[in-house]
């Protein structure tokens, strides 16, 4: 890195922060009220009631560290508007409340910015280009800091993913820097902030076991069983147990652990969210629907026996499939497990250092996104962000990244449905997509094209799809009868792309040859 070359990083970080400030008056979703409610709960009630309080329908369903985080925020919030801290003030949103909540997201994002900074340091500058716009670190910083998904989910839709992803990226960076204990500590803390990250825990577990607990490898890269270090295992175990004790301990003492667990894992919700996340189950549901219609047309099915529940139109509810067998939570769990397994094996038997770890991390995240129970479309960010780290290192990953990021981000569009936010989401999406395509293309301009013609056609067709869903469809008479059609089209079309990216990444990881010469560490 040239001296003073960090100026651009500051500019990028400040630039995006000020853009975030401009988004303060934008639309926010019910998640805004969720977090306001949690502020109120943690501020007013004793610890013993945090996970029992149910005045609002948005009960506390994040792990204890997040509750403590809200507790800390509430002590600043009282200077903005004490009224927001009253539990009974449902849907309270004064100007000061909005300002405070938005600013809290913007300020906690500093952790994310720091994590991106650390990640950029981990990138080896082999391709150090003269032109700053073609430096891998610069491209990575833009891809992460200006990530479309994070911007709209956190700063328009309203959530606190920024600093949580910051924790994750920071732990990834620490692992890359071989500061394993720090990395493990950060990840353990992260898990107790938001338990969705448990999806990627297998990657962390296996990687730490393989490269930290076993201190040496054989010459051919296979495991040297005798190098097992009890000290390292104890240290890791100690960290995990301490963090868990700090988080769950008080509730264990109060005897509330079952209640906390019940709140954290609500299996009563349906297979899919009200809007289908673009995963395997979206395709499954679509096939079921198609078969139903086909069956009714050909009189294979009796129309009176079919339950009348439209899946994308209504609220979160359990749904009975008509033709295909219904899916139980256990089935999704098994599917997820099976899907994750090969990637974990790959990490164990073909260790490739931090790169292999990142690949496994992305595959874990994607597999659980594909097969998980009640997956939210926002969970795709869990795969997109770590994949950005890979995308700037190899042309093959860059191609997969472009497909996954574009379709994944596109599938976030239904999150913002209000007219004033339509231009902003389209402009931001275009901005990010044009940048990611042109920068990665120029980074790998000496290699073969990143996308083949089929993939290009697939991505280009997102444009007519968007035009149809947002502009043409509302003008047609079908809007009254089939209001769910745009959502269904979007989620099924994106599911195809995400499935394709998942398969492609899996195949590329499994077929990759380990360089014999290279040692795991």
């Amino acid at each position, binding site marked *: 890195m040239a001296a003073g070359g960090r100026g651009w990083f500051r500019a990028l970080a400040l*630039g995006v*922060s000020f853009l975030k400030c401009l988004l303060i008056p934008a639309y926010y979703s019910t998640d805004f009220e969720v977090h306001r409610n949690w502020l109120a709960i943690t501020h007013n009630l004793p610890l013993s009631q945090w996970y029992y309080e149910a005045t609002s329908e948005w009960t506390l369903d994040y792990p204890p560290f997040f509750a403590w985080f809200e507790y800390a925020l509430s002590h600043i919030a009282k200077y903005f508007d004490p009224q927001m801290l009253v539990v009974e003030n449902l849907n309270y949103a004064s100007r000061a409340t909005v300002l405070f909540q938005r600013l809290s997201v913007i300020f906690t994002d500093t952790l994310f910015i720091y994590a991106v900074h650390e990640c950029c340091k981990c990138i080896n500058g082999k391709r150090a280009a003269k032109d700053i716009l073609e430096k891998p670190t610069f491209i990575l910083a833009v891809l992460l800091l200006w990530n479309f998904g994070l911007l709209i989910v956190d700063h328009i839709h309203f959530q606190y993913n920024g600093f949580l992803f910051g924790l994750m990226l920071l732990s990834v960076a620490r692992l890359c820097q071989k500061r394993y204990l720090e990395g493990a500590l950060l990840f353990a803390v992260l898990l107790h902030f938001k338990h969705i990250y448990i999806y990627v825990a297998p990657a962390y577990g296996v990687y730490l076991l393989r490269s930290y607990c076993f201190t040496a490898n054989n010459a051919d890269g296979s495991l040297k069983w005798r190098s097992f270090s009890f000290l390292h295992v104890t240290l890791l175990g100690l960290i995990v147990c301490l963090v868990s004790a700090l988080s769950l301990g008080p509730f264990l003492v109060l005897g509330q652990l079952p209640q906390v667990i019940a709140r954290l894992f609500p299996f009563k919700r349906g297979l899919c969210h009200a809007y289908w996340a673009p995963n395997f189950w979206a395709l499954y549901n679509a096939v079921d629907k198609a078969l139903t219609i086909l069956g009714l047309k050909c009189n294979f099915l009796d129309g009176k026996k079919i339950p009348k529940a439209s899946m994308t139109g209504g609220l979160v509810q359990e749904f009975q499939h008509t033709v295909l067998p219904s899916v139980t939570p256990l089935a999704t769990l098994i599917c997820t497990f099976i899907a994750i397994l090969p990637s974990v094996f790959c990490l164990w038997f073909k260790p490739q250092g931090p790169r292999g770890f990142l690949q496994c991390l992305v595959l874990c995240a994607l597999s659980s996104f594909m097969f998980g129970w009640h997956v939210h479309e926002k969970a795709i960010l869990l795969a997109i962000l770590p994949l950005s780290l890979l995308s700037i290192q190899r042309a093959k990953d860059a191609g997969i990244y472009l497909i996954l990021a574009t379709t994944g981000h596109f599938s976030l569009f239904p999150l913002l449905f209000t007219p004033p936010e339509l231009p902003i989401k389209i402009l931001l999406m275009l901005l990010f997509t*044009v940048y990611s395509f042109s920068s990665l293309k120029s980074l790998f301009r000496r290699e073969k094209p990143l996308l083949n013609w089929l993939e290009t056609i697939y991505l280009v067709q997102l444009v007519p799809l968007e035009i149809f869903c947002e502009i043409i469809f509302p003008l047609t008479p079908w809007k009254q009868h089939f209001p769910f059609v745009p959502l269904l089209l979007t989620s099924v079309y994106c599911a195809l792309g995400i499935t394709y990216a998942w398969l492609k990444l899996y195949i590329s990881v499994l077929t990759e040859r380990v360089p014999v010469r290279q040692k795991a560490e």
Partner: protein
Amino acid sequence: MEKWSLMTIAVLLALTVRWAVSLGSYSGAGKPRMYGDYEAQRHWQEITYNLPIRQWYFNTSDNNLLYWGLDYPPLTAYHSFVCAYIAKLINPDWVALHTSRGYESRPHKLFMRTTVFVADLLVYIPAVILYCFSLKETSAKKKVSSALCILLYPGLILIDHGHFQYNSVSLGLALWAVLCLSHDWDLLGSVAFCLALNYKQMELYHSLPFFCYLLGKCFKKGLKGKGLVLLAKLAGTVLLSFAACWLPFGTDVEQIMQVLRRLFPIDRGLFEDKVANIWCSLSVLIKIKNVISPRTQLKLSFAVTFLSLLPACIKLTVQPSLRGFKFALVSCALSFFLFSFQVHEKSILLVSVPVCLVINEIPFMATWFLLVSTFRIFPCRAPEQAELHQTKENMEGLLGEDGSDQSSWKRAQGRGAGGAWAVAEGVAAAGPAFPSSAPILGFPGSALAAPERWQGHPCPWTRPLPALPHTGTERAQSCQVSFPLQVPPPSSPNFDCSKTCTDLKSQREKKCSPVG
């Protein structure tokens, strides 16, 4: 990366910032009786759609001129008419005569914001892109970085997309005119400038350089041969385009006179409130408004403006060059802004846009001016949009360090501005608490520094600009020096009217007349 993808990213970024700003509030939102510029524009749509063209500028029972009477030239009125036509298609309540007064709703805000956005996208942005691509002797990256700087100039974005006005149309048309002139399409250029002039009379600030440049060009070609032909053609074009714009009003002389009276109201004071021009700054020492009669004020300001314009104009007529033309645009607009009668602070945009054109040649001075000028627009805008400046500043800082082909100027400003700017932004953010501090703070920047540079050297193009030893610290000092000046004498009558955004003030605010 390729030139085109870089430019696309720059434009998309500019558009994103524009729309993000427009999500915020507008002038006069929810302030009954007079509201603000937003209501003015809506009211003009109502008037132009419902009344016959002969009544647009007249005070009638249906058209109360005291309530946001139309006081811009015909093209603005036509634009309002077109917008009103679309508005009527969407929701007739928006432009219903009388009953729609003070109409505010979310869909309507969305509609109004869209009209500005579309106008900006159609007129101003393409002009900027083409202008930057037509810059000679610069690398592709430098062209894009100039485009980004111009497109992200916060002043214009805040006034148009935040406060609510359509300045980008008239400024964009003027930019088209500059663009045409730089390609030697003189006739097309003069048409574009006539359109700009007929959209907002404030464009008169730019008229002299256009006139002198074209005249000089005719002289250069020889007044007996080709020059005369060109002159005749130009005169014909100007007359024709004016005639086309004013055609519906040409039916009788009284119509035209009434429109002119509406455009140039000279019965106001020398200056209003806290405009950062010479008269306002002099009033800290001498109360000109109290000493001299309004008639004399008018004459005085006219004489001073004329004198300050003279050197640049003569120079341009004698030696017409494109570079000189751009500098003369800055210099003349600044003369008007500093010395002329009844200037409004938003008129600084008329100086800023030409400054944007020379950002490539004198990056340091230009950026400095643009920052100071934006800073002064603050009283119009909510403080939470302060961050917009910083966005731009960052972009410039970023581009300033993006390689060896950038001049050291830009690098210096990218780094140095931080400290001084932090102070500035802090004060600006406290805007509502100290209503009079922000504009006055801004004034030393432009009223003292700017004339020193532009007026002191009216012909900056005759010699290379001296290497100004400005660094971040020096600017920080100049900023500090200016602090004592910002405290107005509490009893001063000039600051009595400084209660921000009272209805009457905001009504007068948007009216501006150049030399009467």
